[in-house]
Protein backbone atom coordinates (compact mmCIF):
# COMPACT_ATOMS: atom_id res chain seq x y z
CA UNK A 1 0.00 0.00 0.00
CA UNK A 2 1.54 3.33 -0.96
CA UNK A 3 1.95 5.94 1.70
CA UNK A 4 -0.66 8.63 1.69
CA UNK A 5 -0.48 11.86 3.60
CA UNK A 6 -2.23 12.15 6.96
CA UNK A 7 -3.02 8.49 7.10
CA UNK A 8 -2.28 7.09 10.53
CA UNK A 9 0.47 4.53 10.17
CA UNK A 10 0.95 2.74 13.44
CA UNK A 11 4.30 1.59 14.77
CA UNK A 12 4.03 -2.04 15.64
CA UNK A 13 6.60 -4.27 17.26
CA UNK A 14 6.19 -8.01 16.88
CA UNK A 15 8.30 -10.25 19.09
CA UNK A 16 8.56 -13.65 17.42
CA UNK A 17 10.09 -16.77 18.84
CA UNK A 18 12.83 -18.22 16.72
CA UNK A 19 11.42 -21.69 16.35
CA UNK A 20 7.79 -21.28 15.45
CA UNK A 21 6.59 -17.75 14.87
CA UNK A 22 9.68 -16.34 13.21
CA UNK A 23 9.60 -19.34 10.89
CA UNK A 24 5.88 -18.74 10.42
CA UNK A 25 6.70 -15.19 9.39
CA UNK A 26 9.31 -16.54 7.00
CA UNK A 27 6.70 -18.86 5.54
CA UNK A 28 4.27 -15.96 5.17
CA UNK A 29 7.08 -14.23 3.29
CA UNK A 30 7.96 -17.09 1.01
CA UNK A 31 4.24 -17.64 0.38
CA UNK A 32 3.94 -13.93 -0.49
CA UNK A 33 1.19 -13.46 2.08
CA UNK A 34 1.29 -9.75 2.61
CA UNK A 35 0.66 -7.74 5.73
CA UNK A 36 1.29 -4.07 6.40
CA UNK A 37 4.86 -2.79 6.58
CA UNK A 38 3.97 -1.18 9.90
CA UNK A 39 4.85 -4.47 11.56
CA UNK A 40 8.52 -4.93 12.43
CA UNK A 41 9.69 -8.22 13.81
CA UNK A 42 12.21 -8.75 16.57
CA UNK A 43 13.52 -12.27 16.86
CA UNK A 44 13.77 -13.77 20.32
CA UNK A 45 14.71 -17.36 21.12
CA UNK A 46 11.41 -18.04 22.84
CA UNK A 47 8.31 -16.14 23.86
CA UNK A 48 9.50 -16.55 27.44
CA UNK A 49 12.44 -14.29 26.63
CA UNK A 50 10.12 -11.31 26.31
CA UNK A 51 10.31 -9.20 29.40
CA UNK A 52 7.39 -6.91 30.20
CA UNK A 53 10.08 -4.22 30.27
CA UNK A 54 10.55 -4.72 26.53
CA UNK A 55 6.88 -4.22 25.86
CA UNK A 56 6.64 -1.10 27.97
CA UNK A 57 9.85 0.12 26.40
CA UNK A 58 8.31 -0.18 22.95
CA UNK A 59 5.33 1.88 24.05
CA UNK A 60 7.61 4.37 25.76
CA UNK A 61 9.52 4.96 22.57
CA UNK A 62 6.43 5.41 20.47
CA UNK A 63 4.99 2.03 19.53
CA UNK A 64 1.25 1.96 19.01
CA UNK A 65 0.91 -1.78 19.39
CA UNK A 66 2.99 -4.71 20.57
CA UNK A 67 2.31 -8.32 19.68
CA UNK A 68 4.07 -11.39 20.99
CA UNK A 69 4.05 -14.56 18.92
CA UNK A 70 5.26 -17.92 20.11
CA UNK A 71 4.84 -21.62 19.56
CA UNK A 72 1.45 -23.10 20.35
CA UNK A 73 1.10 -24.21 23.94
CA UNK A 74 2.57 -27.68 24.08
CA UNK A 75 4.83 -27.07 21.11
CA UNK A 76 7.48 -24.88 22.67
CA UNK A 77 10.93 -25.76 21.45
CA UNK A 78 12.04 -25.43 25.04
CA UNK A 79 8.91 -27.31 26.06
CA UNK A 80 7.68 -24.89 28.70
CA UNK A 81 8.69 -21.37 27.70
CA UNK A 82 5.40 -20.27 26.22
CA UNK A 83 3.51 -21.40 29.29
CA UNK A 84 5.49 -18.96 31.40
CA UNK A 85 5.09 -16.29 28.77
CA UNK A 86 1.36 -16.89 28.78
CA UNK A 87 1.07 -16.26 32.51
CA UNK A 88 3.33 -13.24 32.41
CA UNK A 89 1.51 -11.63 29.55
CA UNK A 90 -1.89 -12.43 31.01
CA UNK A 91 -0.96 -10.52 34.12
CA UNK A 92 0.76 -7.69 32.30
CA UNK A 93 -2.15 -7.18 29.92
CA UNK A 94 -4.57 -7.26 32.78
CA UNK A 95 -2.57 -4.58 34.54
CA UNK A 96 -2.44 -2.39 31.44
CA UNK A 97 -6.17 -2.75 31.14
CA UNK A 98 -6.53 -1.80 34.79
CA UNK A 99 -4.56 1.37 34.16
CA UNK A 100 -6.92 2.34 31.40
CA UNK A 101 -4.71 1.44 28.47
CA UNK A 102 -6.92 0.44 25.56
CA UNK A 103 -7.54 -3.27 25.24
CA UNK A 104 -6.03 -4.63 22.10
CA UNK A 105 -2.84 -2.59 22.03
CA UNK A 106 -1.11 -5.69 23.24
CA UNK A 107 -1.70 -9.17 21.96
CA UNK A 108 -0.32 -12.68 22.20
CA UNK A 109 -0.76 -15.10 19.34
CA UNK A 110 0.52 -18.63 18.94
CA UNK A 111 1.80 -19.17 15.41
CA UNK A 112 3.54 -22.34 14.32
CA UNK A 113 6.23 -22.60 11.68
CA UNK A 114 3.62 -24.04 9.33
CA UNK A 115 1.14 -21.23 9.84
CA UNK A 116 2.27 -18.63 7.35
CA UNK A 117 -1.35 -17.90 6.61
CA UNK A 118 -2.17 -17.40 10.24
CA UNK A 119 0.84 -15.16 10.71
CA UNK A 120 -0.20 -12.91 7.89
CA UNK A 121 -3.85 -12.89 8.97
CA UNK A 122 -2.90 -12.13 12.55
CA UNK A 123 -0.74 -9.21 11.51
CA UNK A 124 -3.41 -7.84 9.21
CA UNK A 125 -5.97 -8.04 11.97
CA UNK A 126 -3.65 -6.55 14.53
CA UNK A 127 -2.75 -3.60 12.34
CA UNK A 128 -6.45 -3.00 11.69
CA UNK A 129 -7.13 -3.12 15.41
CA UNK A 130 -4.39 -0.65 16.20
CA UNK A 131 -5.58 1.63 13.44
CA UNK A 132 -9.03 1.58 14.93
CA UNK A 133 -7.58 2.44 18.33
CA UNK A 134 -5.55 5.27 16.85
CA UNK A 135 -2.28 6.64 18.09
CA UNK A 136 -1.06 5.47 21.47
CA UNK A 137 -1.24 8.50 23.71
CA UNK A 138 -1.68 6.89 27.10
CA UNK A 139 1.48 4.89 27.37
CA UNK A 140 4.25 6.78 25.68
CA UNK A 141 6.96 9.14 26.75
CA UNK A 142 6.04 12.54 25.37
CA UNK A 143 9.70 13.32 24.79
CA UNK A 144 9.73 10.70 22.04
CA UNK A 145 6.70 12.11 20.30
CA UNK A 146 8.36 14.84 18.30
Amino acid sequence: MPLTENEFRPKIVAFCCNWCSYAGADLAGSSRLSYPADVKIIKVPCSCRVNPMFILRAFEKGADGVILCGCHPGDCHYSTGNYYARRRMTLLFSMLDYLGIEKGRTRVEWVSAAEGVKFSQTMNEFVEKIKSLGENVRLGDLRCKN
Partner: protein
Amino acid sequence: MQELVNRAKELLANGTVQRVLGWKAGDMAYNPEPSYFESEADLSEFVYDAFCGANLSKYMIEASKKEGKTLVFLKPCDSYSFNQLLKEHRVDRDKAYIIGVGCKGKLDIEKIKKEGIKGIESISGIGMEDACDTLKIGTLYGDKECSYQDVMLERCHVCKGKDHVVFDETLLESRDTVDSERFHEVEKIEKMSPEEKFQFFQKELSKCIRCNACRNVCPACSCRKCVFDSTKFDSAQKANVDPFQEKMFHIIRAFHVAGRCTDCGECSRVCPQGIRLHLFNRKFIKDINEFYGDYTAGEDINQEAPLTHFEFSDREPNEERG
Protein backbone atom coordinates in the same frame (compact mmCIF):
# COMPACT_ATOMS: atom_id res chain seq x y z
CA MET B 1 4.28 -5.02 76.14
CA GLN B 2 6.26 -5.69 79.26
CA GLU B 3 5.97 -9.40 78.50
CA LEU B 4 7.87 -8.82 75.29
CA VAL B 5 10.62 -6.94 77.07
CA ASN B 6 10.87 -9.58 79.77
CA ARG B 7 11.08 -12.39 77.27
CA ALA B 8 13.66 -10.50 75.24
CA LYS B 9 15.75 -10.00 78.35
CA GLU B 10 15.55 -13.68 79.15
CA LEU B 11 16.61 -14.72 75.67
CA LEU B 12 19.47 -12.25 75.71
CA ALA B 13 20.53 -13.36 79.15
CA ASN B 14 20.49 -17.08 78.40
CA GLY B 15 22.43 -16.55 75.21
CA THR B 16 19.73 -17.78 72.85
CA VAL B 17 19.99 -14.55 70.93
CA GLN B 18 22.70 -11.97 70.49
CA ARG B 19 20.39 -9.07 69.80
CA VAL B 20 16.80 -8.07 69.59
CA LEU B 21 15.13 -6.48 66.59
CA GLY B 22 12.10 -4.51 67.64
CA TRP B 23 10.79 -1.01 67.86
CA LYS B 24 12.31 1.82 69.84
CA ALA B 25 10.11 4.53 71.34
CA GLY B 26 10.29 7.75 69.41
CA ASP B 27 10.25 11.26 70.81
CA MET B 28 6.60 11.54 69.92
CA ALA B 29 3.70 9.26 70.56
CA TYR B 30 3.54 8.08 67.01
CA ASN B 31 7.07 7.68 65.71
CA PRO B 32 8.74 4.55 67.05
CA GLU B 33 11.58 3.36 64.84
CA PRO B 34 12.83 -0.12 63.99
CA SER B 35 15.83 -0.77 66.15
CA TYR B 36 18.33 -3.31 67.39
CA PHE B 37 18.73 -3.81 71.12
CA GLU B 38 21.95 -5.39 72.18
CA SER B 39 21.56 -5.31 75.93
CA GLU B 40 19.09 -5.35 78.74
CA ALA B 41 19.68 -1.64 79.27
CA ASP B 42 18.87 -0.88 75.64
CA LEU B 43 15.52 -2.55 76.06
CA SER B 44 14.33 0.26 78.32
CA GLU B 45 13.54 2.08 75.11
CA PHE B 46 11.65 -0.85 73.57
CA VAL B 47 8.08 -0.17 72.64
CA TYR B 48 5.29 -2.14 71.07
CA ASP B 49 2.08 -0.29 70.43
CA ALA B 50 -0.36 0.67 67.71
CA PHE B 51 2.22 2.73 65.86
CA CYS B 52 4.67 -0.14 65.43
CA GLY B 53 3.47 -0.70 61.91
CA ALA B 54 6.93 -1.17 60.43
CA ASN B 55 7.42 -4.70 59.12
CA LEU B 56 10.73 -5.90 60.51
CA SER B 57 11.11 -8.91 58.26
CA LYS B 58 13.15 -7.08 55.66
CA TYR B 59 15.69 -6.07 58.29
CA MET B 60 16.30 -9.77 58.82
CA ILE B 61 18.17 -9.88 55.49
CA GLU B 62 20.94 -7.85 57.07
CA ALA B 63 20.46 -9.46 60.47
CA SER B 64 21.03 -12.86 58.86
CA LYS B 65 24.55 -11.78 58.02
CA LYS B 66 25.35 -10.91 61.62
CA GLU B 67 27.01 -13.17 64.11
CA GLY B 68 24.56 -15.23 66.14
CA LYS B 69 20.81 -15.22 66.39
CA THR B 70 18.57 -12.22 66.26
CA LEU B 71 15.31 -12.14 68.15
CA VAL B 72 12.75 -10.54 65.91
CA PHE B 73 9.21 -9.57 66.71
CA LEU B 74 6.87 -10.24 63.85
CA LYS B 75 3.22 -9.37 63.66
CA PRO B 76 1.01 -11.96 61.95
CA CYS B 77 1.21 -10.17 58.59
CA ASP B 78 4.97 -9.62 58.94
CA SER B 79 5.47 -13.35 59.34
CA TYR B 80 4.24 -13.89 55.76
CA SER B 81 6.95 -11.56 54.52
CA PHE B 82 9.56 -13.40 56.52
CA ASN B 83 8.40 -16.70 55.11
CA GLN B 84 8.52 -15.38 51.56
CA LEU B 85 12.07 -14.15 52.15
CA LEU B 86 12.88 -17.57 53.54
CA LYS B 87 11.53 -19.18 50.39
CA GLU B 88 13.81 -16.95 48.37
CA HIS B 89 16.83 -17.76 50.52
CA ARG B 90 17.20 -14.16 51.58
CA VAL B 91 16.96 -14.76 55.30
CA ASP B 92 18.42 -17.49 57.41
CA ARG B 93 15.88 -19.26 59.60
CA ASP B 94 18.67 -20.47 61.87
CA LYS B 95 19.74 -16.90 62.51
CA ALA B 96 16.28 -15.83 63.61
CA TYR B 97 14.41 -16.38 66.80
CA ILE B 98 10.92 -15.31 65.95
CA ILE B 99 8.44 -14.15 68.51
CA GLY B 100 5.09 -13.78 66.83
CA VAL B 101 3.43 -10.84 68.47
CA GLY B 102 -0.26 -10.18 68.57
CA CYS B 103 -1.70 -7.15 66.90
CA LYS B 104 -4.77 -5.05 67.47
CA GLY B 105 -4.49 -3.18 64.21
CA LYS B 106 -1.87 -0.54 63.50
CA LEU B 107 -2.58 3.15 63.17
CA ASP B 108 -2.01 5.62 60.40
CA ILE B 109 -0.89 9.00 61.70
CA GLU B 110 -1.82 10.54 58.38
CA LYS B 111 -5.41 9.48 58.92
CA ILE B 112 -5.41 11.05 62.36
CA LYS B 113 -4.16 14.27 60.85
CA LYS B 114 -6.79 14.03 58.12
CA GLU B 115 -9.34 14.13 60.91
CA GLY B 116 -8.14 17.68 61.48
CA ILE B 117 -6.12 16.80 64.55
CA LYS B 118 -2.86 18.73 64.71
CA GLY B 119 -0.22 19.73 67.19
CA ILE B 120 -0.29 16.28 68.75
CA GLU B 121 1.36 16.08 72.14
CA SER B 122 0.15 12.75 73.38
CA ILE B 123 -1.99 9.82 72.29
CA SER B 124 -3.48 7.30 74.65
CA GLY B 125 -5.31 4.09 73.94
CA ILE B 126 -2.61 2.67 71.70
CA GLY B 127 -1.07 0.07 73.96
CA MET B 128 -1.63 -3.64 73.65
CA GLU B 129 -3.21 -3.61 77.10
CA ASP B 130 -5.67 -0.88 76.08
CA ALA B 131 -9.15 -1.47 74.79
CA CYS B 132 -8.15 0.14 71.53
CA ASP B 133 -11.59 1.51 70.78
CA THR B 134 -11.09 5.21 71.19
CA LEU B 135 -7.96 7.27 71.01
CA LYS B 136 -7.59 10.20 73.34
CA ILE B 137 -5.29 12.73 71.77
CA GLY B 138 -3.81 15.66 73.61
CA THR B 139 -2.90 18.50 71.27
CA LEU B 140 -1.69 22.05 71.44
CA TYR B 141 -5.13 22.99 70.31
CA GLY B 142 -7.12 21.07 72.89
CA ASP B 143 -7.98 17.46 73.65
CA LYS B 144 -9.42 15.37 70.84
CA GLU B 145 -10.86 11.95 70.41
CA CYS B 146 -11.20 9.65 67.51
CA SER B 147 -12.20 6.09 66.82
CA TYR B 148 -9.33 3.64 66.70
CA GLN B 149 -10.94 1.70 63.91
CA ASP B 150 -11.32 4.82 61.76
CA VAL B 151 -7.65 5.66 61.74
CA MET B 152 -6.18 2.20 61.25
CA LEU B 153 -3.82 1.57 58.39
CA GLU B 154 -5.58 0.43 55.24
CA ARG B 155 -4.04 -3.03 55.50
CA CYS B 156 -5.57 -3.66 58.91
CA HIS B 157 -9.08 -3.21 57.57
CA VAL B 158 -8.41 -6.19 55.29
CA CYS B 159 -6.15 -8.07 57.74
CA LYS B 160 -4.90 -11.50 56.66
CA GLY B 161 -5.67 -12.96 60.09
CA LYS B 162 -4.38 -13.49 63.54
CA ASP B 163 -2.15 -16.47 62.83
CA HIS B 164 1.58 -16.34 62.35
CA VAL B 165 2.90 -18.55 59.56
CA VAL B 166 6.35 -18.83 61.09
CA PHE B 167 7.46 -18.36 64.67
CA ASP B 168 9.34 -19.88 67.54
CA GLU B 169 6.84 -18.68 70.09
CA THR B 170 3.97 -16.26 70.19
CA LEU B 171 3.05 -13.59 72.71
CA LEU B 172 0.04 -11.32 73.15
CA GLU B 173 -3.38 -11.73 71.66
CA SER B 174 -4.49 -10.30 68.36
CA ARG B 175 -7.88 -8.95 67.62
CA ASP B 176 -10.10 -9.02 64.63
CA THR B 177 -9.85 -5.82 62.67
CA VAL B 178 -11.34 -6.77 59.33
CA ASP B 179 -14.18 -4.54 58.28
CA SER B 180 -13.64 -4.29 54.50
CA GLU B 181 -13.55 -6.48 51.46
CA ARG B 182 -9.94 -6.89 50.46
CA PHE B 183 -10.55 -6.53 46.75
CA HIS B 184 -13.32 -4.00 46.95
CA GLU B 185 -11.20 -1.05 45.86
CA VAL B 186 -9.67 -3.03 43.01
CA GLU B 187 -13.10 -4.10 41.82
CA LYS B 188 -14.31 -0.54 41.89
CA ILE B 189 -11.52 0.48 39.56
CA GLU B 190 -12.05 -2.54 37.32
CA LYS B 191 -15.60 -1.42 36.80
CA MET B 192 -14.55 2.02 35.59
CA SER B 193 -14.40 2.87 31.91
CA PRO B 194 -10.92 2.89 30.40
CA GLU B 195 -10.98 6.66 30.36
CA GLU B 196 -11.89 6.82 34.05
CA LYS B 197 -9.25 4.26 34.96
CA PHE B 198 -6.67 6.19 33.06
CA GLN B 199 -7.59 9.49 34.69
CA PHE B 200 -7.69 7.91 38.12
CA PHE B 201 -4.22 6.45 37.90
CA GLN B 202 -2.78 9.40 36.04
CA LYS B 203 -3.86 11.63 38.91
CA GLU B 204 -2.80 9.22 41.63
CA LEU B 205 0.60 8.59 40.08
CA SER B 206 1.25 12.23 39.23
CA LYS B 207 1.95 12.61 42.93
CA CYS B 208 4.84 10.16 42.80
CA ILE B 209 8.15 11.82 43.59
CA ARG B 210 10.20 8.67 43.01
CA CYS B 211 11.59 8.74 46.50
CA ASN B 212 11.66 4.91 46.32
CA ALA B 213 10.24 4.60 49.81
CA CYS B 214 7.70 2.05 48.58
CA ARG B 215 10.43 0.01 46.97
CA ASN B 216 12.92 0.25 49.77
CA VAL B 217 10.49 -0.64 52.49
CA CYS B 218 9.08 -3.57 50.51
CA PRO B 219 10.25 -6.98 51.72
CA ALA B 220 9.72 -8.39 48.21
CA CYS B 221 11.71 -5.59 46.60
CA SER B 222 14.89 -6.79 48.15
CA CYS B 223 17.06 -6.89 45.05
CA ARG B 224 20.66 -6.04 45.68
CA LYS B 225 20.33 -3.60 42.87
CA CYS B 226 16.99 -2.61 41.45
CA VAL B 227 16.60 -2.50 37.67
CA PHE B 228 15.64 1.13 38.08
CA ASP B 229 19.07 1.80 39.54
CA SER B 230 21.06 -0.32 37.13
CA THR B 231 22.15 -0.23 33.55
CA LYS B 232 20.95 -3.75 32.77
CA PHE B 233 17.86 -2.63 30.92
CA ASP B 234 18.92 0.90 30.21
CA SER B 235 16.14 1.66 32.65
CA ALA B 236 17.83 3.61 35.42
CA GLN B 237 15.67 6.53 36.50
CA LYS B 238 16.03 8.98 39.33
CA ALA B 239 12.97 11.05 38.67
CA ASN B 240 9.71 10.79 36.83
CA VAL B 241 10.47 13.20 34.05
CA ASP B 242 7.42 12.09 32.10
CA PRO B 243 4.11 10.60 33.29
CA PHE B 244 5.14 7.44 31.45
CA GLN B 245 7.96 6.87 33.88
CA GLU B 246 5.57 7.00 36.82
CA LYS B 247 3.58 4.20 35.24
CA MET B 248 6.60 2.25 34.11
CA PHE B 249 8.09 2.21 37.58
CA HIS B 250 4.95 1.14 39.34
CA ILE B 251 3.87 -1.44 36.76
CA ILE B 252 7.26 -3.08 36.71
CA ARG B 253 7.61 -2.93 40.45
CA ALA B 254 4.24 -4.58 40.85
CA PHE B 255 5.15 -7.15 38.21
CA HIS B 256 8.44 -7.99 39.85
CA VAL B 257 6.70 -8.66 43.15
CA ALA B 258 3.69 -10.41 41.59
CA GLY B 259 3.26 -13.77 43.24
CA ARG B 260 5.76 -12.70 45.88
CA CYS B 261 3.97 -9.74 47.42
CA THR B 262 2.30 -10.72 50.68
CA ASP B 263 0.16 -7.60 50.63
CA CYS B 264 1.84 -6.39 53.82
CA GLY B 265 0.81 -2.86 52.95
CA GLU B 266 4.11 -1.23 53.78
CA CYS B 267 4.26 0.54 50.42
CA SER B 268 1.02 2.38 51.05
CA ARG B 269 1.98 3.10 54.63
CA VAL B 270 5.23 4.84 53.76
CA CYS B 271 4.33 6.73 50.60
CA PRO B 272 4.88 10.37 51.48
CA GLN B 273 2.31 11.33 48.88
CA GLY B 274 -0.33 8.92 50.11
CA ILE B 275 -0.42 7.01 46.83
CA ARG B 276 -2.51 3.88 47.30
CA LEU B 277 0.21 1.63 46.01
CA HIS B 278 -1.46 -1.52 47.26
CA LEU B 279 -3.93 -1.05 44.42
CA PHE B 280 -1.23 -2.30 42.05
CA ASN B 281 -0.10 -5.28 44.04
CA ARG B 282 -3.57 -6.26 45.03
CA LYS B 283 -4.69 -6.21 41.42
CA PHE B 284 -2.09 -8.85 40.62
CA ILE B 285 -3.03 -10.84 43.70
CA LYS B 286 -6.65 -10.76 42.64
CA ASP B 287 -5.79 -11.78 39.09
CA ILE B 288 -3.57 -14.60 40.27
CA ASN B 289 -6.30 -15.88 42.57
CA GLU B 290 -8.87 -15.72 39.81
CA PHE B 291 -6.78 -17.08 37.00
CA TYR B 292 -4.59 -19.62 38.71
CA GLY B 293 -6.31 -20.41 41.98
CA ASP B 294 -5.98 -18.85 45.41
CA TYR B 295 -2.41 -18.14 46.34
CA THR B 296 -1.05 -16.32 49.34
CA ALA B 297 2.59 -15.45 49.08
CA GLY B 298 4.52 -16.39 52.16
CA GLU B 299 1.91 -18.76 53.48
CA ASP B 300 3.58 -21.98 52.46
CA ILE B 301 7.19 -21.93 51.37
CA ASN B 302 6.86 -25.20 49.51
CA GLN B 303 4.02 -24.09 47.29
CA GLU B 304 4.78 -23.42 43.63
CA ALA B 305 4.78 -19.68 42.99
CA PRO B 306 2.27 -18.60 40.35
CA LEU B 307 4.79 -17.08 37.97
CA THR B 308 7.29 -19.90 38.10
CA HIS B 309 4.60 -22.46 37.51
CA PHE B 310 1.92 -23.11 34.90
CA GLU B 311 -0.94 -25.33 33.91
CA PHE B 312 -1.54 -26.58 30.39
CA SER B 313 -5.02 -25.19 30.56
CA ASP B 314 -4.11 -21.65 31.68
CA ARG B 315 -6.21 -18.88 30.21
CA GLU B 316 -5.02 -17.00 27.17
CA PRO B 317 -3.73 -13.44 27.60
CA ASN B 318 -6.08 -12.03 24.99
CA GLU B 319 -9.18 -13.31 26.75
CA GLU B 320 -11.69 -10.67 27.71
CA ARG B 321 -10.30 -9.37 30.91
CA GLY B 322 -12.23 -7.65 33.60
